[in-house]
């Protein structure tokens, strides 16, 4: 109510009470950036602002949950499985190959289903291939998902039916080629938005998703493969989990106020659960991965951790759209910094 306005000729205060149910965010906020930008960016001591009746500024994405988090998870798991499958095939690990191919195939088909289901006009899914736009991760993603799911799906089908063994290897290789991009492009998909807490960690999310994909893919294949053949899966799972945890840590700490949604509320709880699952899954893999029950348990934990990470990241972004401070505070800091910079150069 008394939150001042930083305009020149101040002294204005908002005269109305605002709607009873909606609280205005006119709070003071101290910037606590501890990231690598510190030192480059002048500290802005107090950022005060008055919002428009506490209304959000950017729109909350209309992407549905669980469709989109599931798509992210399945795409990731399928992508990493496809890579694993192709390599296992080359190194002659038939069971691992088969499990990986089936995982990739099932995952890719399910992810396509979830993606289409999320569309407002599902019957127009093919419009995705109408243009090819490098500026649109979803366009590029479509050109990744389409060949991947075709190849992975066909390979899995052939695997099941036992036809055309040669084609199988080719299909598996094609799927593997698109598997990595499929798993990491989804990080770009989220980051290339105006959603504050997605955009801020835009170089980190691909690693989070890549790591998470390996943890999930490794975990799942490990759980369904005899332990003696599942060595690569375990290794990939553990490495993936470590990458996921490390990258996620940076996401959660590098971005000042924009890291906040990853700690708070429901997304915070999801993230904590994800970390517990992933860390426990990785540890258990190392400790008991060579036992059947251990492989199943740790594989499940890793998959769950990956899934929870996707939900957590998704919801943290959603949350960051709902409070205007996540839009205004960083932008005002940026402006102030630019003005400072300008002042510095002009006084020099």
């Amino acid at each position: 109510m008394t939150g001042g306005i930083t305009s020149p000729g101040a002294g204005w205060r908002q005269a109305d009470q605002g709607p009873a149910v909606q609280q205005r965010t006119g709070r003071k906020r101290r910037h606590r950036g501890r990231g690598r930008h510190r030192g480059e960016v002048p500290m802005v001591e107090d950022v005060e602002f008055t919002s428009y009746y506490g209304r959000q500024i950017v729109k909350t994405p209309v992407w549905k949950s669980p469709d989109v988090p599931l798509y992210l998870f399945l795409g990731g798991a399928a992508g990493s499985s496809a890579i694993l499958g192709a390599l296992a095939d080359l190194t002659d690990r038939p069971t691992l190959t088969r499990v990986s191919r089936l995982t990739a195939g099932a995952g890719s088909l399910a992810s396509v289903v979830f993606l289409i289901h999320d569309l407002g006009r599902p019957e127009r899914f093919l419009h995705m291939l109408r243009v090819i736009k490098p500026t649109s991760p979803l366009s590029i993603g479509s050109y990744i998902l389409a060949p991947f799911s075709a190849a992975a799906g066909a390979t899995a089908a052939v695997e099941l039916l036992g036809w055309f063994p040669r084609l199988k290897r080719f299909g598996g290789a094609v799927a593997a080629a698109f598997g990595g991009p499929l798993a990491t492009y989804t990080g770009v998909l989220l980051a290339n938005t105006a959603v504050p807490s997605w955009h801020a960690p835009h170089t980190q999310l691909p690693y989070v998703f890549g790591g998470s994909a390996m943890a999930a893919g490794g975990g799942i294949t490990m759980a369904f493969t005899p332990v003696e053949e599942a060595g690569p899966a375990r290794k990939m799972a553990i490495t993936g989990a470590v990458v996921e945890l490390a990258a996620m840590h940076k996401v959660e700490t590098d971005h000042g106020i924009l890291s906040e949604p990853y700690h708070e509320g429901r997304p915070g709880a999801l993230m904590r659960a994800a970390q517990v699952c992933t860390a426990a899954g990785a540890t258990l893999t190392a400790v008991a991965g060579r036992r059947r029950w251990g492989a199943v348990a740790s594989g499940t934990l890793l998959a769950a951790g990956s899934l929870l990470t996707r939900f957590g990241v998704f919801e943290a972004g959603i949350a960051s759209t709902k409070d205007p401070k996540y839009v205004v505070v960083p932008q005002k800091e940026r402006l102030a910094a630019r003005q400072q910079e300008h002042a510095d150069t002009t006084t020099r």
Partner: protein
Amino acid sequence: MPGLGASFGRGGATNFLEDLANSDCIVIEGSNMAECHPVGFQWVGEAKARGAKIIHIDPRFTRTSAIADLHVPLRIGTDIAFLGGLINHVLSNELYFKEYVVAYTNAAALVGEEFVDSEDLDGLFSGFDAENRVYDEDTWQYEFEEPPHSGSDDPAEAAEQDRLEDDPAVKKSDRAQAAGSGGPPIPAKPKRDETLQHPRTVFQVLKRHFARYTPEMVSEVCGIEPAVFHQVAEWVTSNSNRDRTTAWVYSVGWTQHSVGAQYIRTCSILQTLLGNIGRPGGGIMALRGHASIQGSTDVPTLFNLLPGYLPMPHAHQHHTLEEYVADAAGKGGFWGNKPAYMTSLLKAWWGDAATPENDFAFDYLPKIDGDHSSYRTIADMIKGKVSGYFLVGENPGVGHPNSRMNRFGLANLDWLVVRDLQMIESATFWKEGPEHETGELSPDTIGTEVFFMPAATHVEKEGTFTQTQRLLQWRHKAVEPPNDARSDLWFYFHLGRILRERLKDSTDPRDRPLLDLTWDYLPEGEHDEPSADLVLREINGYGPGGRLLNSYLEMEDDGSTSGGCWIYSGVYADGVNQSARRKPAREQGVVASEWGWAWPLNRRMLYNRASADPDGKPWSERKKYVWWDESAGEWTGVDVPDFEKKKRPDYVPPDGAHAQDALAGTDPFVMQGDGKAWLFAPAGVVDGPLPTHYEPAESVVENAFYKQQANPTLEMIEGPWNRANPTRSDVYPFAVTTYRLTEHHTAGGMSRTLPYLSELQPEFFVEVSPELARLRGLTNGGFATLVSARTAVEAKVLVTERVRPIKLRDGTVVHQIGMPYHWSYAGISTGDAANDLLGIVMDPNTHIQESKVSTCDIVAGRRPRGPELLEFVEAYRRRAGVESGKVGVNGRDPVAAQAGEGSTA
């Protein structure tokens, strides 16, 4: 409107909207122009961009205030005190435009010796008849130069006429409004003292009358700090002189008061003293609220008027045509031609049946003998005195104050015809509404037969609207109305046709007026639509041989001409529908005279002779408008001169001159008997020759000026459904005002039914200050219940600093509540009806209700439902010592209903 009519001779806005751009200062008072006339407001914006000062004087800070340079938050209902303060400031500091005042106003006229001012009678003028609550205007007269003219040479008859003028029945019949075009009649010209020193000059009377309206007094009454008052005074006076002009803009914020006409009078006095009338960027801009309000008084569907502001014949006064036109006989000014106007009207209506032998069928006209205005009629309905009612595009069940009483009226009719576009509340009152909830009305008890007749929209019929600056604009028909929808012209034409067919064999003399009526409008097309064009031609009038008249100056009193509305004569000049002209503005001059047609005679600015000095030269180069061209021997300028084109500025009327010949070359107010603007109104305003501050009928404050609390002549309607809140009652401690929003239109029939407007203001709400919200525990977005002696309504609350409590000098805090009145139960956007809360008290001049101010209580939460609501309101009445408001069946007075009064249907 009488405020302007009595001051200047015509009831229309003196200037036009576009001319506001030429103002150096614009005061918007009693109007929320940016919200209610947004497109007209562009001209205020234009003036502001050119550097004009914009002042908004209004109890609420509105969208108009936001654009203004200064907002003056005066207490509701105190405009006369504020304007009176300005008048006093102007007079006592010699800031008036001296040459203008001496030459063009009645400042120099002497008032008769018997006149006693309200200053000396504690709020009353001389001549008050306490029993009938009316004034005898005799003592307000001028001291005449010569013995008064009279319609009759016989002194006895003149005395009789005089006596009749003072008959209360005549007074109650709204004579004042007849000053719409042509000032009130005066018998002769007054004596003058051009030095203005004689103590009985209007000027000195005025000075004494307003001496008490000091800045301190203004501060006490209006709640305005003296510094703000001085700021307004400074801006207004420094922008009113030879070189600069100030315009005043008002609307229903002034008219809807028990002293509404006097509000406008006060402004007229001020603007006249400042020399702002008849000059570019000056004047008084009356903003009408609806497409053709101006048209509806020019061609009136009003009980007391005939077209062109000719009065309806009065049973006590006008037995013959001769008696009817008698007051014009000795008269100067254009009213002197009243016989010609009236005879032409009678010829237009009854054609060949109107002959000199039968007094041009004057006796065919029904006569009035009292107040037959809308609210009286509603009261009569409840008493069962009215059988049938036509509602033609009107929704009194929402739009009229005390709409509850209006609904009771409808419930006691035999039959009702509603013509509208949508199913409005006034058509469904018999099955829905608050009284059905409380059990006071039910379909079982309502015998009213209702016909809903679908109407045509503005694009489905042709005809003219007269907008706020007296401009007639012809609308062409775009499409046919759907299904059974028909124009109102179709309805009345065919109703008349059927009635005439039914009666065609009648020998009853009372049917002659119907049978002799000229009623041939050549219906054509698949719906037999009568020709609006022929109606407009009839209004314009014909001369001998069926030639269309070019102007009312061609009208004769011998029956050789006809014309349905003399002031509109000329709309078909040269046989061309002038109102249909649409020459693009960019292809013509600043006045755009070739767009549509304005009455009178396409003059866009009235009294524009006053834009030149007495010698006929412009007051200044910057403000030149109309001037005397000596070489051409005529008046010229950017507009049509509102003056006889060839009358020299130095013309002095010879003795015994009549009509316009009696006006001098320096008399710009050509409709006035003396050609002058009236600072003091010796006639024409029934509640006093000068404006005086009275508190509203329902006020929370004592009148600080006089013992007389409210307008002594205000009109009331008694009945259980119209109980008044006692003045200064603790039970109803807050002042409340009603208004419109940009997003809606009046009673909502044309806006609450439309999605795009409904969503913009979706619910009924009231605006309160944070202080009042704290006092009563109201929350923004929550519900509140407002209670008056009439009923209680609930509304959502907007808490806003734009509404502010007024602190008076004695420490009293007056809380004010703002309440838009658009809502009711039907349509897309709904809510309780604000007008249910209001009672009906009226300005005695106009019979317009005081809906801009009343009192109420406000409490948090929703109102009681069902019969509990009645008990809730009744309990308030008991506490306030108000008579019971309980009603009998269909809203009838419980006692009277017992005695058998009321509808028998």
